[in-house]
């Protein structure tokens, strides 16, 4: 038989195996199981009557909430904006959303001046550049520039001459991050990842090196800043830079990196170990310090965070600048985070949704809000078995399938929704779920992944498919809707 001769339909028509492996014993087990399930279902139906009564009581409570009886107990969000320095003056511009990129070299930002005796007097100013982040997924929601506060980190006049500040703008939320970098270096790229991670990179244009390689090799001179919220990456980072947590990280199932020549310069953590800071130098025999970096982590029920800044260096020319940059990182536990301008928060997808959210809580409301964003969702049909068919800490799931185009419907693109009714609880459950490692199993590339979001009291698993052959197509509108729910303060 040659390649051309093979008639697969004919060849594969016979049974693949000689004997029937679905045995009568298996059939008996199935029958026993369904009989047992039927008994439990009858019991649940009896209990359902009690639940209906409970739901009626809850509805009464909710009506009281809507009527304003419970208004006094609702948390009032703090003011979100800070003072805006006037245009063409230090620390930004009043027309913050029109911050001109070409004006980067002429816009300056003031810092308190540190004197030789350690005190401060007066101010020094350094150039301020803008770096707009790219979104790995989704569309920009705002181009508004966050309003800069008065800086409190003190710089000496000498440090001011060596440094520039860079404001990284997030087009999804309008938030900003201020980083310091050597004066002559160029902001190269900032990216907001699918799960909200942040990365920003700067290079010394005279020594750009090969960005694909980490030391040893040819990293050139560059500064990398990253923020990650992935449970696995955070645990791995903690294990790598905090040796007393190494065993803990490995027990979680996350590998700890070993870098030969890595020396910790300082390290501390709070008493319960929920937050810590480490500063390190990476030396190579004969070359001295080839990288200086700092890591900050925090772990709490809401989220895990790991922030890291590392400068790869050739020689000692930028050693002093690196020290200042890393101290600024330490003082701010990462980049200095700037809240979005008031105009940006209004532009974010919360205006109409907030109004609607005041009126309703529940999966149907979330579904309507997603529909407003153009995401049509339908319930499971026929033999569509739920992807995640188990309760999450006692809360039952509702699963919906994206219905983008009936001709091209990918029934693997779905949402599994859990309504916890409390944002703290939802955040905690989302964190627990996200901490589970997920990767290819048995060497087979998994082609559907759940991405976990929490917001407004919901945990949402977004199932999307892809592979090395067919890239993931990711819709970030779900993230925007959930963020808006969080900001609307509707959940108890």
């Amino acid at each position, binding site marked *: *038989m040659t*390649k051309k001769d093979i008639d697969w339909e004919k060849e594969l028509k016979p049974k693949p195996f000689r004997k029937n*492996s679905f045995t009568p014993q298996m059939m008996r087990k*199935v029958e026993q199981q369904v009989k047992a*399930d*039927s008994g439990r279902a009858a019991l649940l139906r009896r209990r359902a009557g009690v639940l209906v009564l409970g739901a009626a009581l809850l509805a009464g409570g909710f009506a009281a909430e809507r009527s304003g009886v419970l208004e006094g107990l609702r948390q009032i969000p703090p003011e979100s904006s800070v003072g805006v320095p006037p245009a063409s003056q230090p620390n930004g511009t009043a027309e913050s959303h029109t911050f001109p990129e070409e004006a980067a070299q002429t816009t300056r930002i003031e810092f308190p001046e540190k004197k030789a005796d350690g005190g401060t007097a007066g101010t020094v100013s350094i150039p301020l550049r803008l770096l707009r982040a790219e979104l790995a997924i989704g569309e920009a929601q705002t181009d508004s520039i966050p309003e800069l506060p008065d800086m409190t980190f003190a710089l000496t006049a000498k440090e001011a001459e060596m440094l520039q500040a860079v404001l990284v703008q997030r087009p999804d939320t309008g938030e900003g991050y201020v980083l310091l970098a050597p004066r002559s270096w160029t902001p190269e790229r900032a990216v907001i990842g699918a799960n909200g991670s942040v990365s920003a990179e700067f290079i010394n244009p005279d020594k750009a090196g090969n960005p694909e390689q980490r030391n040893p090799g040819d990293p050139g001179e560059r500064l990398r800043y990253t923020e990650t919220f992935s449970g696995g990456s955070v645990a791995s980072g903690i294990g790598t830079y905090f040796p007393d947590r190494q065993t803990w990280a490995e027990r979680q199932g996350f590998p700890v990196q070993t870098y030969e020549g890595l020396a910790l310069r300082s390290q501390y953590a709070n008493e319960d170990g929920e937050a810590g800071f480490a500063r390190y130098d990476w030396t190579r025999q004969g070359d001295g310090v080839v990288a200086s970096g700092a890591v900050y982590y925090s772990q709490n029920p809401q989220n895990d965070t790991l922030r890291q800044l590392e400068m790869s260096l050739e020689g000692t020319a930028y050693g002093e600048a690196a020290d200042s940059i890393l101290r600024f990182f330490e003082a701010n536990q990462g980049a200095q985070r700037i809240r979005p301008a008031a105009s940006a928060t209004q532009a974010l997808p919360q205006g109409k949704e907030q109004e609607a959210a005041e009126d309703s809580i529940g999966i149907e409301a979330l579904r309507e809000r997603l529909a407003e964003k153009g995401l049509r969702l339908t319930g499971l049909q026929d033999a569509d*078995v739920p992807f995640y068919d188990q309760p999450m800490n006692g809360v039952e799931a509702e699963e919906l399938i994206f219905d983008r185009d009936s*001709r091209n419907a990918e029934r693997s693109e779905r949402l599994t929704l859990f309504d916890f009714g409390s944002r703290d609880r939802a955040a905690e459950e989302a964190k627990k779920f996200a901490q*589970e490692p997920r990767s290819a199993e048995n060497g087979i590339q998994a082609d559907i992944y759940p991405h976990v979001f929490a917001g407004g009291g919901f945990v949402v698993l977004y199932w999307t498919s892809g592979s090395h052959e067919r890239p993931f197509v990711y819709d970030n509108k779900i993230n925007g809707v959930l963020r808006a729910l969080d900001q609307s303060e509707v959940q108890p």
Partner: protein
Amino acid sequence: MAYEWQGKVSMTADDLEPIMETYGEDVWNFLYIMTRSRELADDLAQETFIRAYKYLGTYRGEASLKSWLLRIARNRWYSYRRLAFVRKVTLPGFMPETNTAESAETEFLREELTSEVWAIVLKLPLKYREILTLQAHYAMTMEELAGTLGITVSAAKTRLQRARGKASELWEKERGEA
């Protein structure tokens, strides 16, 4: 084929037996081709019928009962794959991925496989052995394939063509080496 449960408001556990007798082997064989593990095929085949019993009220007769059961079986396997990574970490040793298990599978295939062509299919990547089996052995139409795999009809045609191509390449290669 009409079953006694058809037309009833709900079916009982006893109604399930003739369905399992008719389709149990098909479901198990399909699951083995997908999972390449007897242990998984045993478990998932039973789960498939438990699911079928639970969701039979939603079966609208749009597809054949066999196609409907195969869809459930496939969903069970993909659901298992998604959750397996959790089990792998929290219950070390859960996955039957040992040398002993592998040699038992090899022994099973040596004794039970009816032809070399099926051995070729079992060596294909999952998405190719899946579509080739459903079309060539279970005689699913393009529309049924598209519905089962959650892809468009044109994507199903393309994937099937590639699956045949890959299988033919593998066949030629194995024949060349023999």
